[in-house]
């Protein structure tokens, strides 16, 4: 149907959420939080053999202000947790977190006083990737899991439907009320 109208009229109709999520999930710019050996596998994931750019995530940026997804690749100590959180806080919304490997997810083999036993104690994690270290394929699978998660996100589209966004000059303005 949509394709026919595109051919006939030059436009198609779809849900705003679909378009926004489609755009978001296919250009996830990672913040490479490479803290230990998992970072080597993360670098391999960016190499031509595994080629993370097939998923639109090849643009690793070393400033959090240009990133969408933080890949925490390595052992997070209590001392480092403050830094990880600060960098996470500097990323603009919407943002996601991949916890890569056993150390970041659970402390891994470092069952000790110095290591945080799972980064979900201080940042919200979207995808946990198992392995010590995970192979690049596993990280890519985690990335694809995150993409499927983003597909289901409710963005501004559904907020407009539920009249939670105040849009001036729109017919719905009268009954939508002020922004929260």
């Amino acid at each position, binding site marked *: 149907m949509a394709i026919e109208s595109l051919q006939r009229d030059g436009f198609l109709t779809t849900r705003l959420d679909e378009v926004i999520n489609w755009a978001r999930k296919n250009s996830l710019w990672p913040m490479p939080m490479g803290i230990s050996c998992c970072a080597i596998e993360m670098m391999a994931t960016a190499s031509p053999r595994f080629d993370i750019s097939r998923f639109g995530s090849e643009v690793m940026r070393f400033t959090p202000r240009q990133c969408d997804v933080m890949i925490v690749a390595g052992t997070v100590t*209590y001392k480092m*947790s403050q830094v990880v*959180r*600060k960098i996470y806080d500097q990323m603009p919304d919407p943002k996601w977190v991949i916890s890569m490997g056993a150390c970041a997810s659970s402390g891994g083999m470092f069952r000790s*006083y*110095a290591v945080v036993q799972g980064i979900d104690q*201080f940042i919200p994690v979207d995808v946990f990737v198992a392995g010590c270290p995970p192979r690049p394929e596993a990280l890519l699978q985690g990335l694809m899991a995150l993409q499927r998660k983003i597909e289901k996100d409710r963005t501004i589209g559904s907020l407009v439907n539920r009249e939670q966004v105040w849009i001036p000059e729109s017919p719905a303005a009268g009954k939508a009320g002020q922004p929260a």
Partner: protein
Amino acid sequence: MTNSDLIEKLKARFGETILAAEEFRGDLTITVKKEEIVGVAEFVKTEPDLAYDLIIDALGVDMYRPEGRFEVVYVVYSLSHKRYLRLKVRVGEEDPVVPTVTGVWPGANWHERETFDMFGVRFAGHPDLRRLYMPEEFEFHPLRKDFPLMGIPDSLPLPRR
């Protein structure tokens, strides 16, 4: 200079200060009174036929015993004679203070900071005795034998969720 010559020389110079000297497979360990460690260090560094001019490591040991609970071990090396020497002092729990050897070997600076961080042994006269590994506001010394493996709950702050 053989190990026994070195022991003779130190005993002739320092006498009662040298508490023990033991040799294990050619490696010599000299136990010194902790008050005199700087003098002995100065001597083994400046004496031309000893010339232990490089500090390899300074570390703590928790023997977990009533008398002289901690030991501080200095591993030094002579670049000209290609020989190692271990100097050792015993430190009681009630007064865990050792004079610093940073005046003799500046390289001991971070090693002594590490020993302070992990064991709580303080080094009198150290120019910058801050913790090396743990956060500065941390109150405990993790490599002590009575410190639990998983740490003290809530002693290390996490960021807000």
